[in-house]
């Protein structure tokens, strides 16, 4: 798209501009942040409709906070991951998490690499189903570490715990995923030999 979503402006600078009425900043921040919030919420809930609602709610909270945002105190993405995680947990407590077929978009049948896409889809569905069986905090830690690619200190800030606790959570979560997926090696294309 011919927009400036990849502008070099920082999230903080854009949020300050947003607070002064800059519609361009509203656009760029939405383009930049919404996919991350949505993707994270989708991994945690396994449900697209829930992920959409949570994305809207998390961003709305950010927009309301914009005039009072104190630069340098926290990264906007860290704050958003925390809000998103809490919203997902609230929603999960109100409703049992669904298994995740909904979380993975269908591949296009006429895609040139249809077989590879099907394989990717099978892997994503398997991982999503295994994630859904993890306890909430383990799931959140594993998703932040291994899918969002964040470092343990940032995850500790998001989850409001110390780094050692994060390491322990991600290690246990990863081991539980390994066990859950072991029987599906062949189906996932990881068979040996």
């Amino acid at each position, binding site marked *: 798209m011919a927009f400036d979503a990849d502008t070099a402006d920082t999230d903080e600078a854009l949020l300050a501009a947003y607070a002064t009425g*800059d519609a*361009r900043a509203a656009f760029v921040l939405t383009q930049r942040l919404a996919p991350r919030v949505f993707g994270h919420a989708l991994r945690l809930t396994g449900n697209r409709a829930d992920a959409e609602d949570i994305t809207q709610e998390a961003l709305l909270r950010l927009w309301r906070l914009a005039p009072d945002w104190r630069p340098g105190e926290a990264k906007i993405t860290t704050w958003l991951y925390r809000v998103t995680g809490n919203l997902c947990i609230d929603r999960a407590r109100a409703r049992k998490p669904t298994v995740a077929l909904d979380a993975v978009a269908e591949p296009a049948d006429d895609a040139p690499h249809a077989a590879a896409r099907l394989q*990717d889809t099978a892997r994503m569905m398997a991982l999503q189903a295994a994630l859904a069986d993890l306890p909430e905090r383990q799931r959140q830690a594993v998703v932040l570490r291994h899918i969002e690619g964040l470092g343990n200190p940032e995850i500790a800030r998001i989850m409001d715990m110390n780094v050692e606790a994060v390491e322990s959570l991600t290690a246990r979560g990863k081991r539980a995923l390994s066990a859950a997926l072991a029987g599906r090696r062949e189906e996932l294309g990881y068979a040996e030999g």
Partner: protein
Amino acid sequence: MRKADDLLDDAALDALFASVRANPQLPSTAVMNRLYDAALAAQPVQRPDLLPLPVNRDARREAPWRRAMAQLLEAIGGWPALAGLATAGVAGLWIGFNPPQALTVWTGPGDLTMLAPYDLSLLDEEG
């Protein structure tokens, strides 16, 4: 303690994570539009002088006459059609200044008796 066969090894699990990272799940365009509208609606200050960007940034810079020309060009069939029109125009101009001999029979005040046989034959047929 679990046996190794009971676990997916680290390399396979890391490959699985990489595969998921490489295929991010994105919100639909309709959802993105809704989120953008919500962002504008929640803006604490409204500044009409800082309007949202149009979908195509180049279109914003385009002057109205340029847009009209582009529409006209599209209507007549694009650049190939315009090239054909230009060629026909130049040929017409050339013929106007330097008409070929055969054409002066039809266009110039030449010898009209050359047409007489045709006219007479037509009259014969009608009569």
